[in-house]
């Protein structure tokens, strides 16, 4: 599978800059997450990748050469919103999409049936799209994107409209493809899914790349160490010099440590005050927190926090 690079992409509309010199790359065998708030420019980047939109500047490179049409024939694409003919039968639509990707009619038909079974939708081939639920439509569309067995899967919000059970089915499917050496690029808002599915991520805000790298690297750089603590009594943050803030998390308290502070400093401080500790667990910073913090930081003009990744550089 190839390495795909988004190289210095720029795209602007009448009053909005949707991509502002965005550069990052996606490697074979990985699930890559494209994150960002609404209107950040994620969909624009995916549309440029699929040649639906032309960039104002920059290019998409495949193994360091400009992308060609035949490269894209090996891509499977799921757009952000439902892309199905509402009045037509599921089978006819899937066969049409498969044939547009080069399959013959018979192969497209048998693969459509197999994919629908795989996605727990057996027997709906002859039903019209407008008779299906939102989640079923989403799965039909996912089947359409994977029908021609693409090496590169590009999905814009693939989990939208799926219940937790179906989200797991789709997640397993994407994992399976990356394990088989395929390349999966997805955009999503659902951070818990990103944490369990993506190997690396890029975060876009107002058309600019603000975070890029593996989850571990991003946490290492932007996360604050935190500890989940079970205490019998209340504690004042001022009484713990190593604590930045204390948040209630169920019956426990999540104490975020100041930069440079270690969990053992917190333990010593708690014991020194004679507090009864019945739970002490070092936890990772949720990606959502980094996400929100980065967006707020960027909006607050803290541009020094922005990372401009070039030539595959890590965050």
């Amino acid at each position, binding site marked *: 599978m190839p390495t795909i690079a988004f190289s210095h992409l720029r795209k602007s509309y*009448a009053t909005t800059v949707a991509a502002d010199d965005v550069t990052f790359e996606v490697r074979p065998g990985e699930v890559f997450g494209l994150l960002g708030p609404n209107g950040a420019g994620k969909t624009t980047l995916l*549309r440029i990748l*699929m*040649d*639906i*939109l*032309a960039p104002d500047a920059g290019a998409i490179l495949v193994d360091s050469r400009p992308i060609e*049409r035949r490269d*894209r*024939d090996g*891509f499977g*694409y799921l*757009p*952000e*919103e*439902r*892309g*199905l*003919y*509402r009045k*037509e039968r599921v089978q006819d639509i899937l066969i*049409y*999409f498969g*044939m*547009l*990707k080069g399959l*013959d009619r018979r192969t497209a038909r048998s693969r459509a049936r197999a994919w629908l079974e795989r996605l727990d939708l057996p027997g709906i081939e002859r039903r019209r799209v407008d008779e299906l639920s939102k989640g079923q439509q989403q799965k039909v569309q996912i089947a*359409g994107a994977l029908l021609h067995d693409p090496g590169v899967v590009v999905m814009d919000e693939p989990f939208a409209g799926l219940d937790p059970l179906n989200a797991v089915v789709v997640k397993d499917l994407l994992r399976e493809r990356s394990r088989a050496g395929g390349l999966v690029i997805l955009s999503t808002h659902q951070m818990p899914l990103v944490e369990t599915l993506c190997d690396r991520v890029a975060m876009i805000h107002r058309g600019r790349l603000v975070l890029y790298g593996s989850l571990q690297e991003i946490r290492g750089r932007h996360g604050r160490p935190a500890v989940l603590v079970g205490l019998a009594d209340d504690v004042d943050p001022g009484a713990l010099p190593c604590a930045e803030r204390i948040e209630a998390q169920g019956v426990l308290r999540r104490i975020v440590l100041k930069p440079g502070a270690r969990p053992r400093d917190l333990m010593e401080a708690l014991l020194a005050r004679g507090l009864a500790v019945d739970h002490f667990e070092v936890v990772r910073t949720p990606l959502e927190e980094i996400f929100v913090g980065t967006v707020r930081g960027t909006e607050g003009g803290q541009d020094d926090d922005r990372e401009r990744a070039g030539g595959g550089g890590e965050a």
Partner: protein
Amino acid sequence: MSKVGVVMSREFLATVRRRSYLIVTFGMPFFAALYFGLFGILPAVFMERSGASRKEVGLVDLAGVVRPEEAARAGTAGGDEQDEAAAIASRLARADPRMRAARRILETVSAPVRFRTFASRAEAIAAIGDGTIDRFYMLPADYVASGAVESYQVDDTTLGVAGNRAARSLETLLERSLLAGRLSREVRDRVETPTDAARSSSFLVRPGGAVEPLDEAARLSRVAIPVAFGFLLLMSLMTSAGYMIQGMSEEKESRVIEILLASVRPEELLFGKLLGLGAAGLLQLGVWVSVAGFATSLVVAAALAALDLELFLICLVFFVLGFLMIGSLMTGTGALGTSGRESQQLAALWSVVAVLPPVAVAVPILDDPNGPLARALGWFPLTAPITMMLRCGTGRVPAWDILVSVLCLLAGVFLALRSAAALFRLGLLMYGKRPSLRELARQIRRA
């Protein structure tokens, strides 16, 4: 199958399966028949059933001009139009026994009016009273000097088939009676029919001075083929553009368009759609023409017998190229509309640009098919299809001239497809927004 082929076959099948398509395709002949029946045939049928047309018309001749032998003759022959209707009726009967109903109606309309003379006005009024006649004419004593005729009828309508026929028959009767005995039979016949089309002939003088008989049927076909193709082109464009815009709005709304554009180039998508919808449009026209052909089998047979194959092929080439060029421009601009209605209006502009100029100057083009105006419109890609069909119908356009026009049109098709594909892509992704002129220009330049 190529991607264009996949798109074409999908568009064709999706269109012909649409309920609206089926209703229009098979409903149109039914509604046309209904319309024709209601406003054309039914009155004649009722007239025939009621026997009104068979009633005699009264005549009170106080001037003494009507000759009895001419009055009797009027009962066996009508005016020119009635002769024509009778001729069509007999041709129909010979051509197709299924046309019996139409024949009866035409015979009813063409049946000659019989006159019954009455000695006085009172006698004629009495005849109306007992239902023998529904109308009578009275020629006053000074008729020859004044030309005044009095008409009496049972109803107060001045319009109507029966009244018109009676008035025309009276004129013929008076004309013949006034001329009888004053002119020889031959001269009287010529006054009635100055040129007898059946015995007349036309000749063509070739540039070298050679004279050859002019084949009327072939001449009719040379006019009919371009006109038929021009009509077909316009109808196909209108029908296909309608379905195309309907389909595009659906794809835009349902976002299917993103999946399509991620799999095929806009040019391929546009081309496939044009071919598929063009085929569906032609199928629809085929159904209509077949149904209409049933009613006019004679005309179709005559046209086929005199078909000029060379002209047919030339018109076919211009039809296909014209459809591709104007259809692609209609689709490209139609995609820019923010609603189906706006899209239709934008698209319709092209058909006006393509059809209006050559139709507006059709007479000068036909008079001088190799003149500067005819040549300019014939070489300009947008107006070339209709203009060249008209020009080629005259049979006087040199081969090189036709070739230049085809080449210009091919270049036009290429440019139109490229520009339309760019507009198409731009328009399809502009959900609910209209692109600025600057953006349009940028996209076309990029294409």
